[in-house]
């Protein structure tokens, strides 16, 4: 399982953004995870509180947007949803497609509290 390693990378990024924005607290973290990213949303949810201990994100809410798999056919141009191991065109059946969505492993956004209450920090 590499979800803990992914979560640790997340904590690093959250820390950097929070510092840049001079936040005193991270209220919520929103991720975008696609089925083809190789990480499991449920395992991320379990790893998150462990990785967040002692960081500015401790106690923050983790929201995960599960992204659909969408492919665009390079032959007929049709766009549509596809299955994780069947990334072929739903219209003409050709296998030569381009992935539009489905491999996201992104930190989408953070909800922060500004450091007004504790400017010395």
């Amino acid at each position, binding site marked *: *399982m590499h979800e803990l390693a992914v979560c640790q990378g997340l904590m690093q990024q959250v820390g950097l953004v929070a510092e840049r924005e001079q936040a005193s607290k991270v209220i919520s973290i929103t991720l975008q995870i696609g089925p*083809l990213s*190789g990480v499991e949303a449920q395992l991320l949810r379990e790893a998150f509180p462990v990785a967040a201990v002692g960081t500015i994100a401790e106690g923050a809410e983790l929201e995960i947007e599960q992204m659909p798999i969408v492919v665009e056919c390079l032959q007929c141009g049709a766009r549509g949803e596809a299955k994780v191991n069947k*990334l072929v065109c739903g219209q003409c059946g050709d296998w030569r497609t381009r992935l539009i969505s489905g491999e996201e492993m992104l930190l989408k956004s953070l909800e922060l509290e500004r450091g007004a209450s504790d400017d010395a920090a």
Partner: protein
Amino acid sequence: MCDTCGCNITDGNRHLVEEGGKHATTDSGKEAVTVLQNLLSENDHTAAHNREHFDAQHVLAINLMSSPGSGKTALLEATIERLGREFRIAVIEGDLETENDAARVRDKGVEAVQITTGTACHLDAHMVHQALHQLSLDEVDILFIENVGNLVCPASFDLGQHRNVTLLSVTEGDDKPAKYPVMFRAADLMLVTKSDLLAVLDDFDPNKAEYHLRDLASDAQSITLSGKTGDNLEAWFDWLRDEVIAQEERVAKGLIQRPRVQPEGAQLHGHQHDHAHQHHHDHSHSHS
């Protein structure tokens, strides 16, 4: 990956930055910040750094991935035996424990660095970077990175390699690409190994394995071979020779090759712009 040039902005999330901009105020009055950064951007940054080293030293780096026991080390032994005089080869071995694989490769007369990951189920760019310090890259044409035997986690971590080669042994089942789509989508080349056993296995069809690979929208070549008997190894050697030439041409033109399956933005921006890398050590050193 970087957070300055917009290489994370894809068709799937572009609207997020186009509407509203980077900052917005949420209903609760708190500050909401749009980030859109890959969760492994720290790893990706180190991987890009590794790749710069490879390109600077004219090294072709190949990441070998498969489940445990599919014949990665045997393939390397056969490859070194045959191509060892044609190319200068070095190997980075990733395993949870033991130096056994590095010792096998060293027995063939090439430099090998063993990374023991302990409980970690994959190599990451940082581990590879550490290992590079033990290699004389300026004396290497092809660097093989033998990843930890695992069809799941290694696919998510860019190491700085130019190509991913995924092995599938005929004892495993020809539907493996359908079962592990993330791994097989990442393959620039699929090697169906242990073809000498096909005679006694009636349930593995290399064509079906290739069919499942195409279902992942992959046009990667598939080669069926045996490291043990030498069957069809020439096709694999020819692929390697072509890749060495292609790498030389890229280096000469200043082009950078990433393995398959990198987010589209990364392919587009190609790390050509000034990235303001803050390296913690001198970039001009030679890994001696």
